[in-house]
């Protein structure tokens, strides 16, 4: 039965169901296959706040969104083109996000009285016309899976669990993807459970062939491989990328990596990842709390490790006193803060960008630190590496900001050639002659003289120290000198970081300025309005303290500056203060990333509302 094949440039699909429905797994498999197939892509999982919410409830819906295409993909997509809804709750929760005319594949077997009630449907939406305007494809997923697995040794419960593979198979067929990678994965994953292995494979194939054979589908879609740069790729989430970036930095710096951490959503996976890297000599220390974690890292830094501590907002708040200690002892330290919704516990599983000012100013006294922010999941690799480089070179703490969206989202990361990474090794001081603990080199860095080095015994600590000599000093003038030196060190970093890049129209009247994890949505929005004929430029801050050297000049070049942020205006605050320029703000603080359309609307509004 030949079906029509339609070529698409990009597609956004969302898998949604109960936590027990395996949607994250299904999504990851689809992602993996899609990546290998050669599309560019971007993903965004959306977990419920609960660990295992009761089946069928609205708040228990777990989702996984994937945006893939034959062109460059910068964000996980505003609105899905396709929704796979495993139950009524999944349908209800996700419906409002869909594109009009989107395809909805529903598991009709799950639309029973109980589930409809749990999802607070009075009438079965498959039976009234509330889904008019969508292309609903009803599939008896549970039943079809059961049929396919009839005769196996599997229990009913186990059979029920396989239905996500049926759905996945169906999706593979629909988007014309190879199923081999998933078959291989099943082989490996379930090698100790041969019945389940067989069951899942059967379900996957059954789903695939169901697409082929059923009349429900008249069209099949094709998304051609993207023209990606040549090379090896790997799909990484932001948290994974941070972990890999830190290990890479340690290797290139020729230092052992030490992580002091305490679990906290959404940063815990960095700890999880790094605790797997034992064969790289990585030491992970799950401390009693965030304070113990950072203090252990400071101790490890003193002892000569590349020291890292990872956390999210409330944890960063707890670490502030100790960050001051790292500042005054001038020790290298990387602090990764994966931002989440605040204040306080706030919305712990949601994303936000509201720790920028905390990172800048949240310490007693004048205690400046370098602040960086990653822009995409894969960029977390580069920025973790950068954070390490700067911390080591300037002997200072560096805060790297990511966020819940970057942390959990993923995209293909082009694996760098190992020799392409900058050499970031710094020598330990061993020479006794002329040694003082607060001597300064051209970067104003003091020497790193680690315990165990004969002849360089010295003491550091949180009391103000005499410049050069490093003895405790209550001298008023020395204190001022040291406060200014610590600030100057940060300014020195300016010469060591790239200029702020501007993309888009040279002659734009509006510059859209973002920072951190909103890069993709802003870029999409800017592209869209440019396609509509507007002249707009984009600049994105990854270096927030210090700002790149050309930042002021860039910002002043445009008549209008628009700053979209997932907070109430923190970068705006810094820009105003630093450059004394008025900026337009777009602030969203809903625990969700920007949709490109939201930024698009605001851009057009800022341009005066005229549609070209």
């Amino acid at each position, binding site marked *: 039965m030949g079906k029509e094949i339609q070529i698409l440039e990009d597609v956004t699909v969302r898998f949604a169901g109960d936590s027990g429905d395996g949607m994250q797994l299904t999504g990851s498999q689809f992602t993996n296959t899609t*990546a*290998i197939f*050669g599309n560019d892509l971007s993903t965004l999982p959306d977990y419920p706040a609960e660990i295992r919410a009761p089946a069928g409830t609205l708040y228990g819906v777990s989702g996984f969104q994937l945006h893939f295409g034959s062109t460059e993909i910068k964000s996980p997509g505003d609105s899905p083109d396709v929704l796979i809804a495993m139950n009524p709750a999944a349908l209800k929760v996700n419906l409002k996000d869909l594109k009009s005319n989107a395809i909805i594949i529903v598991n009709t077997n799950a639309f029973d009285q109980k589930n409809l009630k749990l999802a607070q449907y009075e009438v079965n939406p498959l039976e009234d016309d509330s889904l008019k305007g969508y292309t609903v494809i009803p599939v008896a997923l549970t039943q079809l899976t059961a049929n396919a697995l009839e005769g196996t040794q599997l229990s009913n419960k186990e059979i029920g669990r396989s239905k996500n593979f049926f759905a996945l198979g169906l999706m593979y067929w629909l988007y014309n993807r190879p199923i081999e990678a998933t078959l291989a994965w099943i082989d490996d994953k379930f090698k100790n459970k041969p019945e389940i292995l067989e069951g899942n494979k059967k379900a996957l194939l059954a789903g695939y062939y169901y697409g082929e054979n059923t009349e429900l589908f008249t069209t099949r879609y094709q998304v051609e491989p993207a023209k*990606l*740069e*040549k*090379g*090896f*790729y*790997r*799909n990484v989430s932001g948290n994974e990328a941070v972990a*890999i970036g830190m290990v*890479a930095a340690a290797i*290139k710096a020729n230092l052992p990596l*030490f992580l*002091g951490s305490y679990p906290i959503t959404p940063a815990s996976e960095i700890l999880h990842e790094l605790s797997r*890297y*034992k*064969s*790289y*000599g990585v030491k992970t*220390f799950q401390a*009693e*709390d965030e*304070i*113990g*974690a950072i*203090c*252990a890292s*400071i*101790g*490890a830094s*003193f*002892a*000569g*490790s590349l*020291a890292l501590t990872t956390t999210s907002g409330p944890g960063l708040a707890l670490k502030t006193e*100790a960050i*001051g*200690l790292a500042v005054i*002892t001038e020790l290298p330290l990387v602090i990764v803060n994966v931002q989440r919704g605040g204040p306080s516990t706030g919305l712990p599983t949601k994303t936000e960008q509201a720790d920028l000012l905390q990172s800048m100013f949240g310490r007693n006294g004048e205690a400046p630190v370098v602040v960086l922010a990653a822009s995409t999941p894969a960029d977390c690799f580069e920025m973790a590496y950068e954070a390490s480089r700067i911390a080591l070179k300037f002997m200072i703490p560096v805060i790297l900001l990511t966020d819940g969206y970057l942390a959990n989202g993923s995209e293909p990361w082009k694996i*760098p050639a*190992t020799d392409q*990474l900058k050499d970031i090794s710094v020598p330990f001081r061993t020479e006794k002659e002329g040694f003082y603990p607060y001597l300064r080199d051209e970067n104003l860095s003091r020497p790193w003289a*680690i*315990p*165990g*080095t*004969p*002849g*360089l*015994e*010295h*003491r*550091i*600590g*949180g*009391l103000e120290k005499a410049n050069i000599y490093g*003895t*405790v000093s209550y001298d008023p003038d020395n204190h001022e000198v040291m406060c200014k030196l610590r600030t100057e060190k940060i300014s020195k970093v300016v010469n060591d970081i790239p200029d702020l890049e501007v993309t888009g129209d040279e002659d734009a009247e509006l510059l859209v300025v973002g920072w951190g994890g909103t890069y993709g949505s802003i870029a999409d929005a800017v592209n869209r309005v440019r396609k509509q004929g507007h002249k707009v430029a984009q600049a994105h801050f990854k270096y927030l303290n210090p700002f790149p050297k050309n930042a002021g000049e860039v910002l002043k070049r445009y008549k209008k500056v628009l700053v979209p942020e997932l907070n109430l205006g923190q970068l705006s605050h810094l820009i105003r203060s630093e450059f004394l320029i008025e900026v337009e703000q777009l602030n969203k603080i809903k625990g969700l990333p920007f949709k490109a359309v939201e930024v698009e609307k605001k851009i057009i509004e800022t341009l005066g509302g005229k549609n070209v």
Partner: protein
Amino acid sequence: MSNNEVIATQNLPKLTAKDFTTGQDVRWCPGCGDYSILAQMQRSAPDFGMEKEKIVYVSGIGCSSRFPYYMDTYGFHGIHGRAPAIASGVKLANPELMVWVATGDGDLLSIGGNHFIHACRRNIDLKIMLFNNRIYGLTKGQYSPTSEKGKKTKSTPFGSVDYPFNPTSVAIGSGATFIARSLDRDAKHLQQMMSRASKHVGTAFVEILQNCNIFNDGAFELYTEKDTKADNVVVLEHGKPLVFGKNNEKGIRLHGFTPEVVSLEDGKYSLEDLWVHDEFDTNPTRAYILSRFSEYPELPMPIGVLMQVHRSSYELDVETQISTVKEKRGEGDLKSLFFDGNTWEVA
């Protein structure tokens, strides 16, 4: 000496106390007990069997926490309460270092209590010296978690209503493997305890009763003054009965779980009836009872090693795990790092 102590075997240049003295003026109050503790450390350190560049002193904040500045080794004067955490990082990063923590009763037991109990739990090889003067010295005289109930201080003008910690009981409750007590004024004994702590593999906790002559003068007079010491202090020695008194005329026996002072003079009890100290008892119950002597005015203050047991030390377990994994999987490099997981090529 038990088998859970390490013995230095290297041939090191012979150092003296002077080699451990920094040029910095020592800035404690004249008469402060901290001077003696410093002197004993400077005298003991040459015999730790360790190159001096491998010895690190880490502290928090307090009078006592100035200690690292006065030892000519590597030192880290941290922030209030966090010395055990900083020290843990130092030790984990480089297990070859010998890491000491110098801390006060406020620093270790008030703000730093959590790091302390977790260090004991993990049994990480830190030698923790608690300068217990039962007062906040540096902040000029507030009560501390070891101050006796009813104490009048700047923050408790009508007497404190807090019941104090018993530091050695806290350590036992947290699973510490080496617990000792000494006195600032007993130079020789203090040196012994430092030396013993230096050899323990795992968290070694040494409580030092220290006089703050400015804000809590005489707190430990009973134990340190010539005319009262013998009657109020019992020196614990492994394998020896608990005997004290000016003429060794008193002993301690256990009546069930209750220690009691008995006379060795009235013929009722002899040395055989007494509690014989077993430092290495793997059941910490006796050590727990010893730790509580200080709760009863009729019992003397025990000084010496209350207990020492063996449990693998944290930092060594960490090293072992790493080398086991490395052996199994091979040493990681950039290539294996980057190509771990699903990768694909765009050609």
